[in-house]
């Protein structure tokens, strides 16, 4: 996969390395900006309040 990408990038090794770096940065940006903020509420790590709304002990 990565080998395939590398072979299809234009230019010599330095140019390819530079383009790869830019692609990695773009991937990280998309993850931090869009994917992780979307995924985070779906995971049970950030619930800090007590609320009995869906529990038997609720008021």
């Amino acid at each position, binding site marked *: 996969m990565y080998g395939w990408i590398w072979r299809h990038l234009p230019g010599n090794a330095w140019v390819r390395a530079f383009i790869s770096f830019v692609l990695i940065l773009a991937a990280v940006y998309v993850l931090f900006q869009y994917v*992780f903020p979307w995924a985070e509420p779906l995971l049970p790590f950030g619930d800090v309040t007590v*609320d009995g*709304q869906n529990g038997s*002990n609720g008021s």
Partner: protein
Amino acid sequence: MAARTERNAVERPDTETAPSRWKPRGRIAAAIGVFGELLITAGLVLGLFVAYSLWWTNVLADREAGKQGDEVRQQWESSAPGARDIKGGAGFLHVPAMKNGEVLVTEGTDTERLNAGVAGYYTEPVKAALPWDKQGNFSLAAHRDGHGAKFHNIDKLKDGDSIVFETKDTWYVYKVYATLPETSKYNVKVLDPVPKESGKSEPGRYITLTTCTPVLTSKYRYVVWGELERTEKVDEKRTPPAELR
């Protein structure tokens, strides 16, 4: 720049070696290789997610909380003495034992609010009293990890530690008298105006801090109760009370 001049020299051996390295591998080997690369990628993405949760959300939340806090302080300076406007935030929480400076306190505990790196006072399931109310429970929630992690060090709070709440005109000095290191998230009674689980039976002016525990998970809730000890008027230089000096 230097790379461009080298281009012709480097390109030839590159195009020769690449296919010759690739062709002998069978389809199965190639498929396994791609699968392995996907696994590595998944590992890296998970690692990045950890960095996002524990570091980047803090950066964003601290920035947002700083901005909102500045607005509140500016508003305090410009508004008439005695006037109370808590739309932007009720005030600032200072907990010396948590060693995290001041925490802006705003209304509501929904995720979106708390993600701004603030502590929220409950509006439901049990509505919080505010510090200036004659009696009741000033109940707060904030993140333990990520998004500012404002209550990360809640476990450092011991009986007798002070919790100071700063408003435009008054310092409210609370003393911790009870902690509940682990309780169910359904235990909304901890927010009651008279929190019986803390051992109190008389109405008074209480403060309740809630967050999740153990760290990095949301399995249980950690609760700390305090009671108002005294109030101090804010002087012109906003000299903090002895507990914060």
